[in-house]
């Protein structure tokens, strides 16, 4: 059972991203109000905003934390075509005593010609590396050669994905068994274009990233993508937010050590849920990749969990405003029957009334069993028919 409580965010516009640090004690939010806020969790579990500053001259799409071994470092990306790296410093002022911290911009990455849609740090075993993707379809990988000097970033790789990129995710596996790998999603709405999710892998010999896989079955716009923490499993799981929630399992085909070229994967679709019934916006894995959270156009947050037989099921639904939903179904099939029955009912109600006078009042109730209606993804609450 999950219980939600509201936090006063005080952002002036829509919040686009929430990100936790490694320990889960700090959090960063970014918003269309062009600012980033940093939150610290107090001992009693309350969140306090300890820093808020204007970061960009456009909507800030994403914010992300570096591993704490590189210091307290954030990266943000924005519609203003830039990405920026921020570091918390111990200033001369007495901010700390007042419960505030000071963040300064270490660098602005200005290589993109279009909106930078996502920014992610690479897994820490690769060093301090930052990846951006932009609406013009380019993924850029930057590296800070000296982790003590965050103002120096060199552009290491520039990978053209051909399609407008909306999101990227590194495979967090730190194992030496798997080469570094990331996935890029595209929100290109042209369905006829090729697969909207591409997976790139680092090739030790060429020292370049090469495309390892394109998920051709994903043809609709992809809004978010998340590699599951691998945790020593023999395969990778990739969650994709498109018009539904999709889970792909990538099983590396164990190859001879002599062969080169990208790893071949056996790609299996593990689950596909259209319970959000329309666009799915975000997906996020918990630390053991045993729980997946997704959010969609139905205004709900859904939690998914696999049982021992690897069947994924919905284990919780929460409305966007934090209020719980009663009941647990939420299948689209339930929706259609409800709709059918409500039409039936209102028709019956109408049949009993003559349509003679031009002015009359009658009561039409959207009669539906209350167990499932509120879960219907389109979220409508009223049907009346005449």
């Amino acid at each position: 059972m999950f219980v939600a409580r509201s936090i006063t965010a005080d952002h002036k516009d829509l919040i686009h991203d929430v990100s936790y640090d490694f320990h889960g004690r700090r959090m960063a939010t970014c918003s269309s109000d062009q600012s980033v806020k940093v939150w610290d969790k107090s001992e009693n579990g309350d969140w306090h905003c300890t820093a808020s500053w204007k970061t960009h001259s456009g909507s800030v799409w994403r914010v992300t934390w570096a591993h704490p071994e590189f210091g307290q470092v954030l990266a943000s990306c924005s519609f203003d075509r830039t990405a920026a790296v921020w570091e918390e410093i111990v200033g001369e002022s007495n901010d700390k005593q007042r419960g505030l911290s000071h963040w300064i911009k270490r660098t602005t990455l200005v290589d993109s010609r279009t909106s930078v849609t996502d920014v992610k740090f690479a897994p820490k075993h690769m060093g301090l590396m930052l990846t951006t993707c932009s609406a013009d379809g380019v993924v850029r990988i930057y590296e800070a050669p000296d982790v003590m000097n965050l103002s120096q970033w060199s552009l290491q790789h520039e990978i053209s994905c051909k399609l407008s990129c909306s999101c990227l995710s590194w495979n967090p596996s730190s194992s030496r068994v798997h080469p570094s790998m990331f996935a890029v999603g595209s929100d290109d709405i042209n369905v006829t274009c090729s697969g909207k999710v591409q997976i790139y892998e680092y090739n030790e010999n060429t020292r370049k990233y090469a495309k390892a896989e394109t998920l051709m079955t994903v043809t609709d716009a992809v809004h978010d993508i998340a590699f599951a923490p691998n945790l020593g499993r023999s395969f990778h799981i990739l969650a994709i937010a498109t018009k539904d929630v999709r889970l792909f399992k990538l099983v590396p085909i164990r190859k001879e050590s002599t062969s080169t070229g990208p790893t071949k994967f056996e790609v299996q679709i593990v689950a596909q849920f259209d319970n959000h019934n329309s666009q799915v916006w975000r997906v996020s894995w918990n630390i053991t990749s045993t729980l997946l959270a997704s959010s969609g156009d139905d205004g709900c947050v859904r939690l998914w969990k696999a049982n021992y037989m690897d069947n994924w099921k919905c284990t919780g639904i929460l409305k966007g405003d934090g209020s719980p939903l009663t009941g647990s179904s939420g299948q689209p099939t339930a929706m259609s029957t409800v709709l059918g029955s409500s039409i039936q009912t209102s028709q019956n109600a109408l049949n009993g009334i003559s349509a003679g006078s031009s002015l009359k009042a009658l009561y039409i109730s959207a009669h539906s069993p209350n167990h499932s209606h509120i879960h219907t993804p389109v979220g409508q609450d009223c049907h009346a028919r005449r």
Partner: protein
Amino acid sequence: MSGSKPDILWSPHHPDRYVICDSELGLYRIGPSSGAEETTATLLAINSDTPYMKCVAWYPKHEPECLLAVGQANGRVVLTSLGQTHSSACKELVGKEFVPKHARQCNTLAWNPVDSNLLAAGLDKHRADFSVLIWDVSSRMALDSGASANEKLRLSLAEADSGSVVTKPLYELGQNDACLSLCWLLRDSKLLLAGMHRNLAIFDLRNTSQKTFVNTKAIQGVSVDPHFHDRVASYYEGQLAIWDLRKFEKPVLTLTEQPKPLTKVAWCPTRTGLLATLTRDTNIIRLYDMQHTPTPIGDETEPTIIERSVQPCDGQIGSFAWHPSSQNRMVVVSATNRVMTDFTVFERISLAWSSTSSLMWACGRHLYDCAEDSGGGEGSAERDIATKMRQRAGSGYGHDTVQLWRNHLLAGGDDPQLKSLVFLPMMVTHMKLCAEDLELKIQGNKQSLVYSGIKNIVKTSATESRRSWSGSEWQTDVPRFHSDERCLALRLCGWISRGSDIDVETFLRSLEQEGEWERAAAVALFNLDIRRAIQILNTGASTAKGELNLNVVAMALSGYSDEKVCLWREMCSSLRLQLNNSYLCIMFAFLTSEPGAYDGVLFESSVAVRDRVAFACMFLNDVQLPRYIDKLTNEMKGAGNLEGVLLTGLTNDGVDLMESYVDRTGDVQTASFCMLKGSPVDVLKDPRVQCWIENYRNLLDAWRFWHKRAEFDIHRGKLDPSSKPLAQVFVSCNFCGKSISYSGAAVPHQGRGFSQYGVGGSPTKSKVTSCPGCRKPLPRCALCLMNMGTPVSHCPGTGRSEEKVDLTRENKLAQFNNWFTWCHNCRHGGHAGHMLSWFRDHTECPVSACTCRCMQLDTTGNLLPADSS
């Protein structure tokens, strides 16, 4: 209006009322339905007085509240009302008609939001006539008060024959043109924006001869953004244009993605820059979220558009209307049958999991923190493995290396998978001892045997012996197999205890104590002691509550006969499948099977692997047994069943099995602890095992269980010496540059950390105030100004010496107080105890003129471990 295309209008003042117009006008009230969260619409009134409706506009002022202007196909505009108590003002207005000179279709109507007596009507073209007429609805009332008696008379006469008909508009605009859409500009109530034929025009009522216009095709559905009065949207076919009135020459933005013509465009009244559009024959509403106000200057920057499409209902949408005050809410009406849907457009929610299993999401401008309710009534089995592992780590799971069986209890004692692991460490110890027994026979490979499972043990041949049933009169012997290895396997399965004793009685007693009657009976039966089995069942029936049918089973058992064809055998083999308890089931399977064909027992998957393996070791011959064990092993490997560790041992097979377990559960904790016990040569070097261990350590770090991680590392270092890290810090003398470590002089990389610098009052270490290499004194503590190595004197800062404190703890801390510590930033330092007490009250370094905020430099350093006592 041809009933096919309905439209919706929200009441400007009643948040719960709206009008749907198709062939008639219907007023609805929307409200929460009883009990549920859904809403229902109640039809309040229907008005079908005005035929040929083309367009409708709701009077914007409070009073009269339900006044509507209806534009008809013949160009007439009629004021009408919907079933309200008629106030005097309303009575005056209702029924009034405004008739243009030439009859043509009225396309659009717009009330002036400020001068609410002004109603603009847009008409089709008629030769050189005007197409935009602005009527003054209060014209007669004005006449009432100020007009001459003559005129009054004339009007009343006119009223008598044709109702209150007005034929003279206040303004006539747009000569020789057609008007398709109209809206009053919000920045100035004298300005009217009209979508004319092939141009958009702004008319100024103060100077009607002049107009500002721009040639464009996008002239339909002009509407002003209620939050940004210079922003206007219009459309043409599938093309949507956004205009900035300050820079009217061309649209700031054109969106041409719709394959079908647009039918409605509406700005959201509750949010800035949210535009909803609808095309023909579709069930989606497209939303354009304009994040920035478009700037006319420097038109390089296009406004950010986040495009979304929402699907409010299944059927095709006829029209929609934003709710005037509820956030992002709209009512949608279907193209046919007037099915209405109350629909809220939700903000896109972004979300993130924290490492401690709480979920944060942002919806709109609000944040929601969501955590798993630990006090919930559900069983802990339901919880996620992340939560379970965290709890287990917190309670010390896996760390108890002395009393290994306790680990299972620490894990919560509810996971059958982990229960089977209790036997694993026992097995390894067992194997070590047994290997000694076997040493004489198996030469050389003692080491590998220690970690291997039953699969590797039972490869040698066994001698067959026929044993008869004890305590019964049957003559049939059952073939049983013996060998030392099989004996060892039985021991590992727990059936017989260590030593020369091969009696199962001890095991039976322990099972009886735990109340596992069925299992005990089955074990007794497999040892061919049917009387003991019956006795166990009887005891079980008499002690356990409600288990009376154990007696029935005992009865059935006692009827056993060894004849090949008899009713008992026939009935038992068919009815046994209906027994709930699998142990009872396999008992009868055993009795009804031919010797050597025990599939009913061996493949009963709900029986513990231990018992099945033990059974196989007793009754399968040298050909069957390895085949069975191999098959079972593969089955366990495939399923990731930890019980299979008994078969595989901590060998590479075991790693395969564990991999399958980790694949399924993600429980790297158990995997790490199990594999640590394995052979350092093969298993610990396996990259998969290394990967699990790394991942588990990373988890502990993320949970801030740093103490647990350190303990794990210590534990690991004992079992796998190669995992020990090298010394991290070397301190060299300022003068000679040599390491100041005493013990480390010979082998510096194996220095024991800081402990050398402590003096602890030991006389042999009294010289540690100087460098062992050059005998120069060590640096001084910034606070007590003594050379390092001097024992710490009483810290004045603490002032707690009188307080009663835990003595052992105090002693430990006293040792730590002697340590030499320094700031990495300013390189000032001193005794750890002195430094700590200084920074309790200060933020800056104790050295004069040094402003370094040593204690605040590291944010992670300020984090407290989550597992400190």
